[in-house]
């Protein structure tokens, strides 16, 4: 019977079948961060348990850490949270990427970067953007704190088998259009809950031609369509990326692993529950205008007008979002002044993203009244960018060059919008208050956010560079 990639990953991790749709699934790897892991360790201590396989874990502090520098954390709560993580990893023997080390970074950036993320594995983390790791053909999904405790103790989780969706990407992208634009256009089409219950596999000729960074951006954003699982079949691009990474198998084990990984792609005649196709030649640079990621338009299109909507719920949601965002129906999003630009996050904090942003700001200046920051996804990304001179490009343009962390994507540290601030952001969520209470977020690609930073307003990056 032909199987999809998802079905192969699912089948190969069944410890016990519980019903037609549920199974106990083996978890190969768990990533822990300071914000979602404390309660799992509390449960372990309360039950007097040890981690079943501590060596399969990887811990790092990323969510609440300051990005202006490393060293002592000023915020007492954040400092206590990082100290608690450090005590937990020491007590339970969990590998840890220390805050001031060259291995530190956002969970979903360092996993791939270190070769910890491997095809064919199951990977969980107390973070919904764990979808990112699916770009390697890993079954990777976000879980809650209780489930983290379960994985620590049992290395297993009870899970419901997902339906399968294949997103076929054809055609080629135009200049200055990126994976972020594809993700936003797709979410605008299928909705913020359009993929609930599905494992989404991105496939088609355009995927084969895509870098790992672009694939990670796509998989990262599948949760914004409601899916816990985004996937890309492992191929030569995947293998070339992984070979030689610090934690990837080497020597004879690499060859054995490679032979196994090559069996993972969906069979040619595998059946998916749903098919969606997108011609990339039709995708323009996107920007969100509302408070849900599906509230996104191509930069050339006007903001929707609720008066023209027949669905009462859509009208109500549009009116609510426009009121929060301080925008007028029917107007162009281009030309809307911004106060902030944020380039970073697990969605767009990789070296390729920083290069794209640097290419736009090079030789230009951040507009007066705009605060722009670049927050690399990891210490290694930061070092690579500095080796390429990108930090100088950003600094010369008046962009703040920061240390790695989640930063203004989740606004748990002091990188935060104030009420009424408007941010061109490469992050993944434009929810109310996501970047600070009362803050207004416009999701877009690194090139678009960089263009907005220098223009002082949301702008079609193609106009800026023309």
């Amino acid at each position: 019977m032909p199987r999809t990639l998802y079905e192969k990953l699912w089948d190969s991790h069944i410890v016990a079948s519980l019903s037609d749709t549920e199974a106990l699934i083996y978890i190969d790897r768990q990533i822990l961060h300071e914000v979602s892991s404390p309660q799992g360790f509390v449960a372990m201590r309360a039950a007097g348990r040890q981690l079943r396989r501590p060596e399969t874990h990887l811990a790092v502090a990323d969510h609440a850490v300051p990005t202006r520098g490393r060293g002592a954390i000023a915020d007492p709560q954040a400092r206590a949270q990082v100290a608690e993580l450090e005590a937990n990893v020491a007590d339970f023997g969990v590998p840890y990427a220390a805050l001031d080390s060259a291995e530190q970074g956002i969970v979903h950036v360092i996993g791939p970067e270190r070769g910890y993320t491997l095809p064919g594995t199951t990977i969980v983390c107390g973070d919904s953007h764990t979808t990112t790791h699916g770009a390697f053909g890993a079954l990777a999904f976000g879980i809650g704190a209780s489930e983290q405790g379960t994985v620590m103790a049992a290395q297993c989780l009870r899970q419901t088998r997902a339906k399968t969706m294949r997103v076929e990407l054809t055609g080629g992208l135009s200049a200055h259009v990126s994976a972020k634009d594809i993700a936003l256009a797709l979410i605008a089409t299928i909705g913020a809950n359009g993929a609930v219950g599905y494992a989404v596999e991105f496939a088609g000729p355009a995927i084969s031609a895509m870098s790992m960074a672009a694939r990670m951006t796509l998989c990262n954003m599948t949760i914004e369509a409601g899916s816990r699982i985004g996937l890309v079949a492992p191929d030569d691009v995947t293998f070339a990326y992984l070979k030689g990474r610090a934690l990837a198998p080497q020597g004879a084990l690499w060859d054995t692993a490679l032979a196994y990984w090559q069996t993972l792609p969906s069979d040619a005649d595998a059946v998916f529950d749903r098919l969606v196709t997108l011609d990339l030649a039709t995708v323009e640079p996107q920007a969100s205008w509302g408070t849900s990621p599906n509230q996104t338009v191509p930069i050339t299109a006007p903001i929707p007008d609720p008066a023209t909507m027949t669905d009462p719920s859509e009208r109500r949601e549009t009116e609510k979002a426009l009121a929060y965002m301080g925008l007028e129906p029917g107007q162009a999003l281009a030309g809307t002044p911004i106060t902030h630009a944020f380039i970073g996050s697990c969605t767009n904090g990789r070296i390729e993203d920083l290069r794209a942003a640097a290419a736009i700001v090079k030789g230009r200046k951040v507009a007066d009244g705009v605060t722009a920051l670049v927050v690399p996804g990891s210490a290694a990304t930061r070092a690579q960018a500095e080796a390429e001179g990108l930090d100088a490009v950003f600094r010369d343009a008046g962009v703040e060059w920061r240390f790695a962390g989640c930063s203004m994507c989740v606004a748990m540290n002091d990188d935060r919008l104030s009420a009424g601030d408007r941010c061109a952001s490469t992050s993944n969520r434009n929810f109310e208050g996501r970047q600070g209470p009362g803050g207004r977020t416009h999701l877009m690609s690194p090139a678009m956010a960089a263009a907005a930073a220098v223009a002082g307003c949301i702008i079609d990056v193609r106009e800026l560079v023309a």
Partner: protein
Amino acid sequence: MSMEPFTRITGVAAAMPEDNIDTDIIFPARFLLLTQREGLGVHAFHDRRFLADGSEVGDFILNRAPFREAKLIVAGANFGSGSSREQAVWALHGFGIRVVVAPSLGEIFAGNCLRNGMLALTFVPEICAKLMDAAEAGRTFSVDLERQRVEVEGMEPIPFSIPPERREALLNGWDETDQILNRFGAEIAAFEAGQRIVQPWLYTEMQPR
């Protein structure tokens, strides 16, 4: 660890006729710096419930009688979407909420509910609309897990489905980790023994080179 058993709850339902009430709305990220799971109810819907000066937003549903005592929330589509933070569930539980009803739910959120003695129920939009009307009218809801149905004054009981093992765990307050360890220890060991042979690279010490 065990969770509070769920058998039958009775109370009013807070109507939230809005789509995409995400976990950032339910529990703003800045409160994630708190590491305890108790006492988070005060932060549930914080930025909707309170003004910047800490005073209450008068017309927010959970600030109005009788909905301050609500045990259910009836919401629009995609309630609990977004972040995996279990604090969203702990905060709702701390506020007194035991059941969430919506046309669709964030998957991680819904799973977190089941692990904390709460029910997350989805119904087709027509039924949700009726329940929304009943909630807005302040009618009393009962949710009976034994009989697997929602009972509302003046309405026919509405059946719901839930996997039998999930139901049993909720009725008894069983902890999932305990259940797995007690029932499947041998299966887990057998799986590892097999995987070690076919995927040995997953069993080497991960020491960076």
